[in-house]
């Protein structure tokens, strides 16, 4: 009995010791699979390193940076002006590093016969001005709009880029995670939603988007890399300048050739 207690005590102390030296990455659920894989590879290369990765949304990551409970905030949107102000009030200067690019795919149910939409049509759909698929050339079905919660960087980026900063309509269905959006769109015939390129699978259909009304581009790695696909956004790591020494090795690894290869494997677009 005593031996077992002693052993578990040592185990706890060992884990705590590791955790004390740990680097914490927190934030976007879009960047999460990428950060987890990079952290895993990094820890395999450096046996003394210990990295913990948590999701929750871009907003959660930046809040944690403000509260000092994380070393790196991973986000899929740029830091907002008032967030920067709040950090400056606390005496923290924040540094931004773009680690990958991501394309946002607009998805519909596979049974929907629509294959392309313009930005204006998307804006109309998500702000509630267009309510039936027949108004954009589809069948006579009510449009069911799926979105992410307000803490999501994907939500903010879509609002900025596609809706031009207008608010979503009140009756949009807010799903807590990308996986839930995919699940719901795949089982609701009149559904439309948006997800990161890396989450696309055979259960949903991605639409070709046009921002100028003429060129319709479909979301793919090549189209995102040469920026012909319009809905592309940077994925970023933010950290406080005073933590630079602590986080530099990890960030250098992510930006190295090996790290960027992982970016491509996960399904995102590598930085040039």
């Amino acid at each position, binding site marked *: 009995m005593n031996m077992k207690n002693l052993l578990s005590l040592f185990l706890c102390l060992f884990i705590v010791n590791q955790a004390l030296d740990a680097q914490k990455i927190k934030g976007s659920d879009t960047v999460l699979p990428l950060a987890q894989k990079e952290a895993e590879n990094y820890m395999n290369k450096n046996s003394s390193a210990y990295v913990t990765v948590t999701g*929750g*949304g*871009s*907003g*959660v990551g*930046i*809040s944690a940076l*403000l*509260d000092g409970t994380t070393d790196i905030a991973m986000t899929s949107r740029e830091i907002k*002006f*008032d*967030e920067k*102000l*709040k950090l400056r009030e606390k005496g923290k200067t924040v540094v931004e590093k773009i680690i990958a690019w991501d394309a946002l795919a607009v998805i519909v149910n596979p049974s929907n016969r629509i294959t392309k939409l313009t930005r204006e049509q998307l804006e109309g759909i998500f*702000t509630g001005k267009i309510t039936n698929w027949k108004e954009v050339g589809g069948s006579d*079905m*009510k449009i*069911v709009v799926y979105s992410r*919660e*307000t*803490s999501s960087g994907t939500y903010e980026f879509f609002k900025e880029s596609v809706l031009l*900063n*207008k*608010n979503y309509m*009140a*009756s*949009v*269905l*807010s*799903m*807590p995670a990308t996986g*839930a959006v995919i*699940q*719901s769109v795949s*089982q*609701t015939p*009149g*559904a439309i939603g948006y997800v990161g390129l890396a989450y696309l699978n055979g259960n949903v259909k991605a639409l070709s988007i046009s921002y100028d009304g003429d060129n319709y581009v479909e979301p793919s790695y090549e189209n995102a890399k040469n920026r012909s696909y319009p809905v592309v956004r940077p994925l970023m790591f933010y950290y406080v300048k005073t933590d630079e020494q602590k986080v530099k090795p990890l960030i250098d690894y992510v930006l190295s050739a090996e790290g960027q290869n992982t970016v491509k494997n996960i399904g995102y677009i590598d930085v040039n």
Partner: protein
Amino acid sequence: MRRFFEIIVEKILLASGTITSIAILMIIIFLFRQGAGLFDSPVVEEGYSLVVNKTNPVDHLTPKEIKNIFDEEIINWGQVGGTNQDIIVFRLGDITKYVSEDELGDDFQFVPEAISRIISENPAMIGFVPSPYIEDGFQGKILDLGNIKVSDYFLGEEWFPTAQPAPLFGIKPLVMGTLWVSIAAILFALPFGIAVAIFMAELASPRVRNLLKPIIELLAGIPSVVYGFFGLIVIVPLIQKLFDLPVGETGLAGAIILAIMALPTIISVAEDSIRTVPLSTKEASLALGASHMQTIFRVTIPYCISGIMAAIVLGIGRAIGETMAVLMVTGNSAVIPTTLLEPVRTIPATIAAELGEAPNGGAHYEALFMLGVILFIITLIISTTVELISAKQYKQNM
């Protein structure tokens, strides 16, 4: 010596009872205090100002009008009490449309001057800019819109906590959503739960009872995310097909999942309390000529009514407060529901989804804590009502 020991144990029990009660009270006070600052927060997002041209007669705008102006639903100043001019919306990012980037300076030192100039040159403009960029000598008019009003919060019908420039904190859709889903769940779970408890305690053969009891207690241990997942994959498409709806994520799906989650709790506690009724009481009733059914409803149940009340209150608490499962199946759309077959947004789901990103101490954060207080009050009211009604009925029958 033993007397001394007993006094110590008595004091320890008294202390733990007092500490528990004080802890519960402190949690409630903490909730109130965190939420209290909400009505001292400005209408326009903190750190930003709304500015108009000096000649603009409009002095006051409601948060709803601000949202509609920036969403381009209100396009003329005449609609909000100004002169007949089309509104021009200006956000900080638009500054490069009026002034080239070089003119703003490398360190953005000329931005305040540029903003001041742009506003004074455009009489029909309304600008949403960070407050540090409004310096002394600003050539426009800053709209002072006051603080968030109590009536806007409690009676407002739109919940847009991250809208810019002025977030809308109307909780009516959230409260209605919570009430619809919770009351429907309670209406499903209570009769079923009590009926199964009576069946298991009084009517089932020992073999059936010994089979059912561990299964039901197993159900109580399943994590709520699993229930949510089950709901999303099985119940939501089922409801969509059954009622021929455009979308299956509805209040009904949430109510069914909540009922399934509350059932094991209600059944376990109620059944245990029904079993505590002494055999002599039941035998006395049977001896006086009552049938088994009459004994159950006139003698056994009133005897253990307090235990059944405990089961009901626990079940209600579980139904109202359950967050994860509801978050996944109700669609979370903040509109006031008129039927159970529409997507709804409940208070626990709102708090869970938004608290992580609400800046600590900001208006959104305080609004969410006030929601927590309201949820607590709703649970209190529903539990007390159910207790009063049921207790009164059985006391009458006794």
